[in-house]
């Protein structure tokens, strides 16, 4: 059942050609970043991960936005569950994102643009950060399109607003300290990216692992909340 619906989603998404704009934008982003030589490894991976977060939000909104109400109703009934429908679609978008993760990691290696040899440690950190940021993007897109938090006409506006807050979180907290009590609700993207400032980071660094653990717990709680809101929507 899962495979059939994944295959259907794949055929439908590919034949819609709507993936072209976000995918090419992301490829241009990667090409732009690696246009220079002797780049630091982890901060370059951080930059591509930010791009992946934005592009996966875009792809998720497009993917969910294509489904008409009647199509959703047909598949809710065929799958006998709204939750199954939502989860399989999220799984498909995640699998789609892994292709972009692979490109993000392999492209600079092929061009040999880094200032030092890429160790397994760097590759693992790259995989973890790209996957986490791509999931954050998918979750944000899924929240925007599958709950009642924004009408169709305000989806993009709200998305851009949330992204701006996510990326300026640290500045906001510094200038308006009390916002730290509200902004912890946002995904810990800046915490994760801050770790990539230096190439001395180890995948086994306890602080890095703690942030990754927090990110995973955050994703699980967000998924649970998404399912509850989706059922009510």
């Amino acid at each position, binding site marked *: 059942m899962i495979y059939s619906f994944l295959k259907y989603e794949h055929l439908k998404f590919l034949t819609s050609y709507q993936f072209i704009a976000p995918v090419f934008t992301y490829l241009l982003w990667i090409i732009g970043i690696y246009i220079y030589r002797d780049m630091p490894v982890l901060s370059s991976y951080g930059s591509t991960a930010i791009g992946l977060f934005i592009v996966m939000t875009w792809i998720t909104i497009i993917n969910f936005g294509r489904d008409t109400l009647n*199509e959703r109703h*047909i598949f*809710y009934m065929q799958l006998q569950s709204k939750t199954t429908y939502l989860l399989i679609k999220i799984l498909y978008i995640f699998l789609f994102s892994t292709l972009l993760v692979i490109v993000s990691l392999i492209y600079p290696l092929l061009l040999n643009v880094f200032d030092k040899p890429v160790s397994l440690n760097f590759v693992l950190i790259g995989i973890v950060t790209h996957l986490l940021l791509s999931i954050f993007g998918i979750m944000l897109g899924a929240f925007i399109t599958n709950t009642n938090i924004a009408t169709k006409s305000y989806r993009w506006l709200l998305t851009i607003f949330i992204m701006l807050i996510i990326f300026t979180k640290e500045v906001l907290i510094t200038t308006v300290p009390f916002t730290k009590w509200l902004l912890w609700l946002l995904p810990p993207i800046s915490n994760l990216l801050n770790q990539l400032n230096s190439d001395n980071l180890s995948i086994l660094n306890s602080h890095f692992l703690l942030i990754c653990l927090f990110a995973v717990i955050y994703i699980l709680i967000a998924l649970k909340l998404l399912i509850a809101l989706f059922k009510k929507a």
Partner: protein
Amino acid sequence: MAEIAVAMDQVTLKLNNKTIINNLSFQIPKGSITLLKGKNGVGKSLTLKLMTQLITPNAGNITVSGHTSYAPDSFPKNIKLTTKSFLTTIQNLNMKRKSDSHTVDDYLALLNLSSLQNTKLHHLSKGSLQKVNIIQSLLTDADILVFDEPFSGLDKTSEAQFLTRLQQLSKTKTIIITDHDANIEHTIATHILSLDDYTFMPQSKHQELKSITLSNQQYVSDVIEHDLASWVHAKVTSNHQYVTLQVDKQNVNVVLQHLLKHNCEIIEVKDL
């Protein structure tokens, strides 16, 4: 007593603070073919969505015994898969199908759609899309089949073949349809659910009744309850202005005479 497939008890549905369905109650027996009828905007499609649990009511209880399949009033036009590819996906989603059940090819042949099996869905006509819509709901192994205006856009041959198939299916399944065509009411429907006056009854009984609509004056309830109780089959107060009575055809004249004697203002008398 017959087993119940779908039961609604005092169900109310509001959309944008407007009451669409108000205290609707009925019990659809298993193995029946129920036609939902009513004027535009009375909530036929929403009632179907309540039955399939695609939406939840604001008040009341809905009980559904078994797995339900659903064909909406129109099929999405933005799917660029071929007819066969889409329906095969649907068939594969239903892994627990019985070995004797119809396959995609059987249904494509039944509804004269075989020649379009390799045509992409967004290139199909409205009628052909409707056939795909019907087939996707028939490919499930559901106990209750729900169709929202399935005959819209179908040619006469396909309509006849589909009606025959529905009659065959009703031996083992419960079928619920909305349609404006009187043909269904007089051919295959075993029960009628009228959303104009919230009545649910066997089709044979439905044909024997007339409805009398009168102004809801202060003394009308007293007249009905004290003098006409034994003559009136059912009383429906659809709003504060009107009362509708359902009366056996043979008793209509007696009831009308009695209402006129009490100066009741009669608005309309018609077949149900």
